[in-house]
């Protein structure tokens, strides 16, 4: 039973899709955000799998950057969530329908 790059990719895709499902099904902004983090994590797995199989260091370096960017995004994203909570006392996106049409 050989574990090939395809196995890792399938895992990555599975996590990515689970994240995507979470994004489209949940209404809590925080959980949506977490789902997105799941997707980024899946991407990282894909990068590393490819790096491993192609014997390229670039893949791993990119993951490093992705991690950093994800952290930065988390900071800003949580800031936004807090500021909206201050105004509206909610984090449910279906209650935010001020802008539409």
């Amino acid at each position, binding site marked *: 039973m050989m574990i090939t790059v395809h196995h890792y990719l399938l895992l990555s895709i599975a996590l990515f899709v689970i994240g995507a499902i979470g*994004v489209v099904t949940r209404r809590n902004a925080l959980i949506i955000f977490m789902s997105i983090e799941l997707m980024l994590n899946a991407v990282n797995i894909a990068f590393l799998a490819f790096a491993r199989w192609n014997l390229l260091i670039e893949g791993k370096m990119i993951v490093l950057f992705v991690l950093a960017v994800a952290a930065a995004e988390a900071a800003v994203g949580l800031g936004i969530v807090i500021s909206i909570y201050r105004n509206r006392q909610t984090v449910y996106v279906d209650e935010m329908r001020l802008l539409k049409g």
Partner: protein
Amino acid sequence: MLDTLYQYISIQTLAWLIVALPLIGAALNALIAVGTAKREMGSYRSLVSFIGVVMPMLAFAAAAAIFVTMTSFESTDPSFITGPLFQWAVTKGLVIDIGLKMDQLSIVMALMVTGVGSLIHLYSVGYMGHDEGYARYFAELNLFLFFMLTLVLADNLVLMFVGWEGVGLCSYLLIGFWFEDIAKARAGTKAFIVNRIGDAFFLAGMFLIYAVMASANAPVNAGYFNFEMMSRYNAYFVPMAGIISLLLFGGAVGKSAQIPLYVWLPDAMAGPTPVSALIHAATMVTAGVYMVVRLNFIFALSPFALSVVASVGAATALYAATMGLTQTDIKKILAYSTISQLGYMFMAAGVGAFSAAIGHLITHAFFKALLFLCAGSVIHAMAGEQDIRKMGGLRYRMPVTCWTFVIAALAIAGIAPAAGFFSKDAILWQAFERGQYVLWTVGFIAAGMTAFYIFRAVGMVFFGESNVPPERYKKVHESPTSMAMPLIILAFLSLLGGLITVPHVLGGTDRLGTWLSKLIAYETSHAPGEESKATEIVVMVITLLWSIHFMVLGWVIYAQKREWPNAVAQKFGFVYTLVANKYYVDEIYDFLIVRPLNWISTKILWQTIDDTFVDGLAVHGTARTVGVWANIVSMAETGVLQQYLLYFLIGAVVVVGYLAL
């Protein structure tokens, strides 16, 4: 004397003057009319009269001078052309010159038009004397003369058409002269529109002539529409002659008020009576006849077309005469009479007796103008009353009018030796001689009716007891000299005008026929043999007796036994109603053409096709569809983030699915 004239002015210029003088008069009077609009005319009135009357008279003088000159020409063909004043249109394939053609036919017409025209202008001075539109009236009347002379003297078909339409315009303006009466304005509109229907055919005929001339490779430079050229390339017309003739005749039917387009003429009586006399009796309505004679070289090529012309003419002659029997409006009687007489002319043309047609045209101009002017005189005296049932016994109050009217009535009834006798007899004889017995019979019957209805009018208006209220009757007076004078002159002409067409059999020379013979392509001028001579005299006498019989009948019944007609009318109630209502033709046209056209235009074309389908369904429908989709697309933007994410995901799935599989 003429030689002195020609030292100063060439005969060509003189010819141009015939046309130009009325135009100048029209222009001057139009300026006065615009200048005095909404103001009192004051002293301008005499200036207007002067210009208005003198110009036609000068034109008449010019025409007379040319006529005299032409008769004195020694060559066999006295006709001449003026040459182009200017070229109206010149392009590859089309040359139209503005030129006049003075020949035997046109000069006779010009004489008649200017002559009768001058008299009627003179008459109008008195008749219209107190109208506020005096200047306008004379401007329009002069303009009419201009166009009529253009029509008559034109050397090509297009210029003739200019005159043709121009007289239509003037007719429109003059019928609706008293435009404040909407019925009169309506009559003018109707006249123009009905004429236009004929003109459309005329145009089509012209286009076919062009096609023929083009196919004949005629030299373009001379102009395809030039009468001279057309007659020169006569032979090429053979294949198309029938259709061309019929189309042109369509124009004539409109202008000369034949079946089925005669309906405008009775209504046209709404105009001032001198106008009716000039335009709707003497000149314009005869333009159709003139055109047929002018183009006789085409008509003669198609026996079928000629037979159509003759049949329509005969039918109209009889049909209009029947309607003349029952009318009670004096002008209407004369109008139907005019239609009927025009029918005679077409019958003559149709059997090929073109010069007889012109002969009747001329004499008819005299006596019918006279009839109208007399009627005008009566109406003038009766303060606008036109119903003959409310007249009677007027001969004591206005003798000149009465006796001139009687002379004209004799003429139209065809009682020898008045003018109408010779000209009408010529037509009937020509029909008879050529074996057109049906036509002859129709014409014969109509002749009797003519005599009857015209003397019915004579009887009811001038003789018998007066139906005029006594106080009014006392006020009735003879017309002033300016009006009486033309009556007398025309009476003279009506009495003696027949001399120009006295046939050989009566020892005459048929001067007109001889004069015109050069121009007539196909007049079977039988040298009358002994047999036919006898026949001719027999037929003539029968016709004369027939007419006299009806004349007397009409006079007796309506001057003496006025209760009879009512009895007859009651007995033949249905027929009487039918005829008295002019066979309901106006109503039928209204029902079959006018209303459906209006309804279709309004309901189907405008409201259904235009508003509902094109604009509504197609244009606004598109807009609405776009609007609906816009709303749908806009509604998709619900404001809920998850929806957006869903669109995103579905989009991604589609893109990835398409690319990755």
